[in-house]
């Protein structure tokens, strides 16, 4: 039965360093929430606090209606998946999955049934008798997911579960975890520093920096309309230009765009826009010279030099055949695709 997670004004410091700074967050039942941020932003500390592996200096954590703040880890209704799998090397795949059920003294028949269905769920029915060292990294992490799900936890916690895997397996397992979470319907909190992973797997993404949650919204919302300069810079590819604010409180860059300056900005502002929002135009717009064209599959990234600036423009690869270094191009950016922030 999935439960909601309520994090209320949670604070945690290591010496003078504040790992979590008055963090509050709600995760509704059945939602997959990604905690996204760079190393040291506090995302793993927050996840471990939900698991009870870290003490808190202040604040409360509730799972459903139960206050778990002072509850030992083993009594919390959670399952956890670790970055480096943390499977028990002395137990087989089936032994690992049945471990939480044996601890809870479930009947042998019930354990056998549950282990069988979880092995089916992760697609490893034929490997139940193998030991962890006989499995690939991806298979081991699948087993870790099954072990975490075995006791039917109210909340599934995943601590960078894909970070130790190769790129190809990472994408496959990411989709697999999403599929399993959907099928099981459990609430899940997923920690990652990879923005594309967070976007792909989560219902909502909480962007963290220096122990605080800067914003928490659906992936498309964070990507298209970031509320903070940090989120705009951290999530996805982007162009960043520092431009002066004109007397009429506008931020202009030649013929490329003209947008209102933020109210709090003085003197200069940062204009941020995505490479895929830049349009090559026949006439008008800003003129620049192509530096290099990089083929990325469905799109090609065109690096255009304009004065001291280098602008990244994503062009469908089918339309990029005539583009090459040295060629002059004109481009423009729709005003609604530009986010403007006051300079720090």
């Amino acid at each position, binding site marked *: 039965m999935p439960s909601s997670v309520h994090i209320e004004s949670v604070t945690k410091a290591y010496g003078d360093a504040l790992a979590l700074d008055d963090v509050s967050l709600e995760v509704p039942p059945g939602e997959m929430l990604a905690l996204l941020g760079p190393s040291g932003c506090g995302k793993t500390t927050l996840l471990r606090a939900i*698991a009870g592996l870290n003490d808190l200096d202040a604040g409360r954590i509730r799972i459903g209606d139960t206050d778990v703040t002072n509850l030992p880890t083993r009594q919390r209704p959670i*399952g*956890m998946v670790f970055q480096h799998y*943390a499977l*028990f*090397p002395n137990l087989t795949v089936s032994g690992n999955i049945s471990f*939480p059920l044996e601890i*809870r003294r479930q009947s042998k028949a019930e354990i056998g049934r549950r282990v069988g269905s979880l092995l089916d769920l992760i697609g490893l029915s034929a490997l139940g008798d193998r030991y962890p060292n006989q499995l690939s990294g991806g298979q081991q992490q699948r087993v870790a997911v099954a072990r975490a799900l075995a006791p039917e936890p109210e909340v599934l916690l995943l601590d960078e579960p894909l970070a130790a895997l190769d790129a190809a397996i990472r994408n496959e397992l990411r989709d697999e975890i999403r599929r399993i979470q959907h099928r099981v319907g459990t609430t899940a909190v997923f920690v990652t520093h990879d923005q594309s992973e967070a976007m792909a797997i989560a219902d909502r993404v909480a962007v963290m920096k220096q122990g605080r949650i800067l914003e928490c919204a659906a992936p498309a919302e964070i990507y298209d309309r970031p509320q903070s300069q940090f989120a705009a810079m951290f999530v996805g590819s982007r162009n960043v230009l520092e431009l002066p604010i004109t007397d009429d409180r506008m931020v202009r860059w030649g013929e490329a765009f003209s947008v209102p300056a933020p109210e709090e900005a003085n003197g200069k502002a940062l204009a941020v826009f995505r490479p895929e929002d830049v349009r090559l135009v026949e006439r008008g717009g800003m003129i620049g010279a192509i530096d290099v064209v990089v083929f990325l599959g469905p799109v090609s990234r065109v690096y255009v030099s304009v004065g001291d600036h280098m602008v990244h423009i994503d062009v469908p690869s089918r339309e990029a055949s005539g583009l090459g270094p040295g060629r002059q191009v004109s481009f423009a950016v729709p005003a609604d695709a530009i986010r403007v922030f006051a300079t720090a």
Partner: protein
Amino acid sequence: MTAVQTSPPAVRPDLPAPRAPRVGSGWPRWALFSGWAAFLVLPVMATILYSFATVWRNEAFPDGYTTRWWLETLSEPRVVSSLVRSLLLALLTVVVVALVVLPPLYWSYVRNPRIRTLMQLSALLPFALPFVVLAYGIKNLAGITEITRQWESSSLLLVLGHVALSFPFFLWPVDGAMASAGVRRLSEAAETSGAGPVATLLRVIAPNIRTGLLTGSILTFAVSFGEYSIARVITGSSFETLPVWQVAALQDTRGNPNGVAVMAVFTFVVMFVVSVLIARATQGETIRLLPGVDLSKTD
């Protein structure tokens, strides 16, 4: 614009391929190996021969051979008693060392790493201090208070002396095994699976550090079993262990030097068999856990 060379540089066919240096090839290797083997094997062989020798004078081999010393020594009550004492003492030492070392070492991995540093520093003491100094220190310490003075020359104090002496031999392999197994990660995985501390220790941690536990236990057992100085200083001859009997037998003009050789061989065989059994049971992993072996694969 400069092009970047990405292909590997071509090898000139006229140059000979570089040869990997071969260390210790040819006769120097065999000479070194033979010298090393002779150094190790000759004393053992000589002891074995002496335990079967009727008389051994200034010759390469004994004048004759007999099983008399073996039969007499192994049926002598004083020898059997000292052997039993040494066995019990060594077993008790292993148990106490395990109880003293395991909980704080485990705690240092899961909660407080500073404990481990303290333990590693303490482990240097038996090597920094001569055994006799250590023994007198323990004895004097016991004599400080009225309550503990009654144990000043007791076998209980001897156990503590052996614990102080041999705990590094338990600590190092177990420490290596814990680092290698990723004890903290395993503990957290067990905790989040709902396991309490006892289930975590018995079902997850102990099986995964089994090699270290076995290695540490046999090293501790061997150190305690063969220890003479501390036993002599603390209990004198009131609690005669096998090494104490062996020295006494050698010093006594009416002693039994062949019997000493018998017990040395007997002890050697027992320890050798136990070591081989443990090495087989752990598939050779015991070697990897000895002090000084690289254990960079940690969590």
